[in-house]
Each structure stands twice: as C-alpha cells, then as structure tokens.
C-alpha cells in the first residue's frame, strides 16, 4: 500500500496536489536532496549512502548523459570511479556495487 501525497484542502498552496508523483521524482528527492544530519544508526547511514550510489547510477547512466552533452555530474565524486577511490577506506568499496549491476 502506498500513500499518495495529498494536500489538505485548507492548504494555501496544495503541495503535490496535481497528480500522484512518479517514483523517480520522489526517490531522487528523498535520497539525494534535503537535509543530511548524521543519525544514531550509523551503519544504516552508510548503507543508505551505498544505496544512494546505486540509485544515482540508475538515475542517470553516465553514457546517456554524456551523449546529451550534459556533464555536471563529472563534479559529483560518487559518480566518478577515480574520485571514489580517493574516498576514505570503507566507503565506496562495496563489492555489491561492482558485482551487482542494476536491472
């Protein structure tokens, strides 16, 4: 069961009231934007980061973007393997990331 965003009728501006948002729009927002404050459950935070990497790779295949002449992701350390290598140990070395291509 999923709950669609519905603005209350008393809202001055109905947030998300147009139509059910598609999953891609929601995922990129809740996983990749907004406030990052370090929570107590550190291990899950790390997992989330890894998951986020997977989803980022899903969000834009680098080749597609490059083909379109879009290159701002080049500055995103998560998306460049050279930058990933420069991260501290324990981050960005999830074997599942390399071995488990997103479908």
């Amino acid at each position, binding site marked *: *069961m*999923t*709950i*669609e*965003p*519905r*603005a*209350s009728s*008393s*809202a*001055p*501006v*109905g*947030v*998300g*009231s*147009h139509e059910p*948002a*598609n*999953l*891609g*729009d*929601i*995922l*990129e*927002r*809740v*996983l*990749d*934007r*907004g*406030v*990052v*404050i*370090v*929570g*107590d*459950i550190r*291990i*899950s*935070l790390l*997992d*989330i980061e890894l*998951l986020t990497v997977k*989803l*980022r790779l*899903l*969000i*834009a*295949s680098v080749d*597609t973007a490059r*083909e*379109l*002449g*879009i290159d*701002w*992701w080049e500055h*995103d350390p998560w998306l460049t393997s050279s930058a990933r290598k420069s991260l501290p140990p324990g981050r960005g070395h999830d074997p599942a990331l390399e071995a488990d291509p*997103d*479908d």
Partner: protein
Amino acid sequence: MTEPSVAVWVYAVGVDLDGPWLAGATGVDGESLRVVSVSGLAALVGSVDSGRFGAEGLRRRLDDLDQLEGIARRHHAAIALIAAHRPVAPARLATLYADDDRVRTAVRRHRDEFLAALRNVAGRLEWGVKAYSTGSEPDQPTPSAPTSGTAYLRQRQALLSARNSSWQRVVESAHAVHDRLSEIAVEAREHRPQDPNLSGDRRSMILNGAYLVDNEHAEEFATAVATLADEHPELAVELTGPWPAYSFAVVDDEQ
C-alpha cells in the same frame, strides 16, 4: 549492545509544526506523526519499530524496490503534509535517532543553518520541470547501398553529423527553457537526468530542473512552462509540483 525497541525517524525540520493537520497523520511505519521541539525549532518525527527500521531491517527493506517505494512515498507524504502549512527543511530518507533527546541535540547543533534554510524557503515551493527530446528530427532516408568504401564513409559521416547537430539543437533548447524559468524562480538547480528505468519514460531526458518559486509567482511560472513548451516542439516539457523545497533547504554535515 541491544537496540531499543523504538527508534525516532525524522521527516523534516521547521518552526511551529504542531497543528490540526497532524491529526491522524502517519509515517513510514504506520506510526503517528508528532513534533519534537528544541531551541525555537521543531522536528516532525515518528517512533518506528527499531527491528523493522533498525540498521539490519532497514537495509533489507531498502534493498527491495517495492518496499523502498512504500517507504519513500510515505516519507514524502509526511513532508508534503507539513510543507502545505509551514516552511520545512525535508530530512533525507532514513535519518534515525535513538530517542527524542538525540534528535534535539542534532537539530540544536545545526540551529543556525536550519534557520537560514527555513528563511530561504518561506513562502516558496519547489517546482520540477523535465524536458525530453521528442525525437522530432526527421528520419534519415534509408541510404542506398554504398557503391564504395568512400561512399559508405561519407554516408556514415553525414548521418552522424545530422544526429549531432540535432542533439545540439535540443540541448540548446533545454538550456533556453532552464534559463527562462530561472529568471522567474528565486533559485534554480539542474539535476542529473533520470534514467528511463526510473522515470518510466523511454524518451531521453535532457533537462531535470528544480525551481524555487515564490508562491505568488506560481501561476506565472506554470504559464511560462506552457509557453516554453509551445515554443519548443522539439522538447516534451513536463511540470511537476509543487514540492516541498527538497532541492533548496540544504543542511549538510556529512563530512
């Protein structure tokens, strides 16, 4: 160390978040939403089962796309509910604390940044504009069988350069759309285009923009999007929102 049976899931941070809108509102675990206040700020939170939403349980859940979808939608729904009434800084998915006091400590530590972020988004909401190539470039006529290697290369060259300049035009149009909308918006961001697997749309996404727009200019913004869509038939333009200001209420202590 055993985990407590309950963990506190943070949805958003704002000011004065309590109100009738919270009556009956639930979060990712079906739990009631409530407000934790600290230093003039308020966090919208819920107490979730730490077995289902602790480190291990959460990892399992988020690895499953169906479960991830449910959690992401409920997390978003809670934020959207409050954003309809108050400026908020949405928390990234899976921001969890052991108890309310730990939430207070974290929020207090970033008090000034939260206040600045909230000032920035007050009276404004985020709109999303995506543009796809409609692929309206004319199909290349099927080339006659090349009579020589040189003829083949020439055909190939012509085909590639036609494709290139057509892409270039589409990308330029997308930039023009973004620039025009950025003039109406208070702030604008270009995000990575979504992969068709995620967008569910087979067309190539060229623009994935987010725009922070004053609520009184929302109509003007939507009209501009419609006008730009008419002006650029080579693009399919899609407007989403209004969204809570996910792209513009940024507080980051990741490092």
